[in-house]
């Protein structure tokens, strides 16, 4: 057994060093930075487009000073309660001219700014003109008029009558939304990371095939050790990659405003943060090893780079299928879909990571990890046998019945 482990680690060490000690690895390591840079350039472009329109939108209310004051008071009261996504333009009140209707149309047609809606006329019969057929801003102005009229009839001034106190209170239990967000985060991030890293395993055996080293390895080491060693070597590369970006992320996180951390506080896994982190690492390991073993097995059958290239599509589809399966499980926790995704070995790490977010039980994770480990071993054994049969042309007596069949 120790000999097997030693041989496995020899292969793993060779693959790890051969991958990491190359200029290409630096490119691979910094690939997210490149993606990020392209994304940032795109975002900046979009932001500049957005900023050019920002601050150039107004809604107008043409009203006498007393009504205007009431409208502003109502706006101050209601606006914060309206979702920020609504993006309501600033309210501007103007005194009525001789012909308020013409004045309103002039304001609506202002070529220098966007005016989606204008209110004029008495508050009990407000006239609203708007350009958009389904203008919510016009409805907002109507609501302001209603509120201002109520305030007027109650003989209320512009000042606030109540003095609300706002206090933030921690929930005693994780919210459904927080659990769901944590589950979604787990599945998506696991998928992205394995998509990026496990796919590398496809071409690793091709190296040995093309430079004929496979004969040396096969003579000295069981093929299962070769497969596992290569998988561990590539896993080491993946861990190095993730450690690098985790370190970068932590340092960048320290520079972010507190609001950002508050935003993340909504992510609340049911099993608790430390347990979730532990399980996330374990499920990442399992996802990598399982998918990596499949890719290694499939890739080992390919004889040329072209064949490997052709394999990338079915492999991506396979990964997407597992991702979709796991996502379906998040949406229906406890359903048969979720159970199937948790049991099916190649979607199990994703689905179980999602389960860690939505359920506080530990025992299913222990069972799942053992189950996934078994499948890692099975996949490697099957991969090695397929390689022995297909590439080394060695079925051996045990497979004779199969050939005859």
């Amino acid at each position, binding site marked *: 057994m120790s000999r097997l482990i030693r*041989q496995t680690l020899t292969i793993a060490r*060779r693959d790890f060093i051969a991958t990491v000690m190359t200029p290409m690895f630096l490119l691979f390591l910094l690939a997210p930075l490149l993606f990020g840079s392209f994304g940032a350039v795109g975002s900046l472009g979009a932001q500049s487009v957005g900023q050019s329109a920002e601050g150039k939108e107004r809604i107008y209310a043409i009203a006498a000073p007393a009504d205007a004051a009431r409208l502003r008071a109502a706006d101050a009261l209601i606006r914060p309660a309206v979702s920020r996504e609504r993006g309501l333009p600033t309210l501007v009140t103007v005194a009525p001219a001789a012909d308020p209707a013409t004045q309103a149309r002039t304001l609506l047609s202002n070529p220098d700014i966007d005016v989606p809606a204008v209110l004029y006329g008495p508050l009990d019969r407000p006239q609203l003109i708007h350009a958009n057929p389904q203008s919510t801003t016009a409805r907002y102005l109507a609501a302001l008029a209603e509120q201002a009229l109520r305030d007027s009839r109650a003989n209320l001034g512009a000042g606030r009558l109540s003095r609300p106190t706002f206090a933030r209170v921690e929930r005693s239990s994780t919210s459904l939304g927080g659990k769901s967000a944590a589950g979604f985060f787990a599945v998506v991030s696991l998928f992205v990371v394995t998509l990026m890293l496990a796919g590398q395993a496809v071409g690793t055996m091709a190296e040995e095939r093309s430079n004929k080293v496979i004969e*040396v390895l096969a003579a*000295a080491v069981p093929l299962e050790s070769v497969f596992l060693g290569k998988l561990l070597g590539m896993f080491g590369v993946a861990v190095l990659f993730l450690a690098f970006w985790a370190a970068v992320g932590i340092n960048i996180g320290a520079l972010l405003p507190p609001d950002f951390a508050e935003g993340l506080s909504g992510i609340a896994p049911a099993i608790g943060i430390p347990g979730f982190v532990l399980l996330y690492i374990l499920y990442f390991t399992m996802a990598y090893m399982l998918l990596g073993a499949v890719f290694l097995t499939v890739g080992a059958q390919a004889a040329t780079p072209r064949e490997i290239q052709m394999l990338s599509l079915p492999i991506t589809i396979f990964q997407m299928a597992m991702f979709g399966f796991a996502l379906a499980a998040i949406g229906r926790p406890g359903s048969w879909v979720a159970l199937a995704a948790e049991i099916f070995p190649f979607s199990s790490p994703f689905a179980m990571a999602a389960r860690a977010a939505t359920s506080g039980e530990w025992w299913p994770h222990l069972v799942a990890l053992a189950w996934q480990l078994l499948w890692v071993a099975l996949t490697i054994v099957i991969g090695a046998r397929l390689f022995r049969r297909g590439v080394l042309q060695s079925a051996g*007596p045990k497979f004779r019945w199969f050939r005859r069949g």
Partner: protein
Amino acid sequence: MQDENWALSADGLVKRFGDRRVVDGIDLQVPYGAVYGVLGPNGAGKTTTLRMLLGIIEPDEGHRRLLGRSAPRDASDRVGYLPEERGLYPGMKAREAIAFMGALRGLDWSVGRKRAAVMLEQAGLGHAVDSKIRKLSKGMAQFVQLLGSVVHQPEFLVLDEPFSGLDPVNQERLEALIRAERDRGATILFSTHVMAHAERLCDRLCIIAGGKRRFEGTVDDARALLPMKAHYVPRDPAPGIAALLPGDAQEERGGWRFTLPPAGIEGILVRLIDAGYGISGLSIERPGLHDAFVRIVGEADAEKAA
């Protein structure tokens, strides 16, 4: 029959690729400490046999035993192997490549590195210790791989066509290395179709043709399969001499070449002297391994054709 006294034994090994029996019931016994040659023409099944003996591929039928283990892989740390298709990682340095191959066979990596430097120096490749494999010539890379197959000081060394691709100087070096390994106590099995190497190195050998073992024994045993030849040069090459010589006599190099009869050459010489032809030159030629090989393989081809 398999025996613990053999470093390697094989009994009825069969390997089929599709419907073709590439190896067809080969038996083999290699004594401990011997240099054993597996000879055969191209496509005879030598490499497939070696791969089965090492456990790289499984036989369809038959059994083999390597260093007392019925599963050859169980003895892999005590075995060295140079495959026919040479393979090294091009990005590795020569020293690392040798240490890596040793590590696969259980040798500590740091020990392997130290030994690799010494071995490369001894092989006249000291300048290449830290050179990457892709920078080395084919012959040098081949020698690096050879050193990698012996760095862990194996008890059993298998070399598949080790001389192919080497220049005469490196062939000499390789022969010296094989002798050194034998002197160290290793058992060596190598395949070749170059008879000169087998003749110089092998204690025993087998000849494989058409997937079957056609001969097994010493080099002398192989030579003994063919009768000795005599080359006679008369002092007076007058006509009519052929009538006094054996039936297969043929003119060659200013004289006559013929098979030595079982009764000896004395009777023929007496007749020639009495007839006045005299003797200007006479040499008795032992047939070479090459001749034996050609005859054995020729017979196998004839059998296959029939």
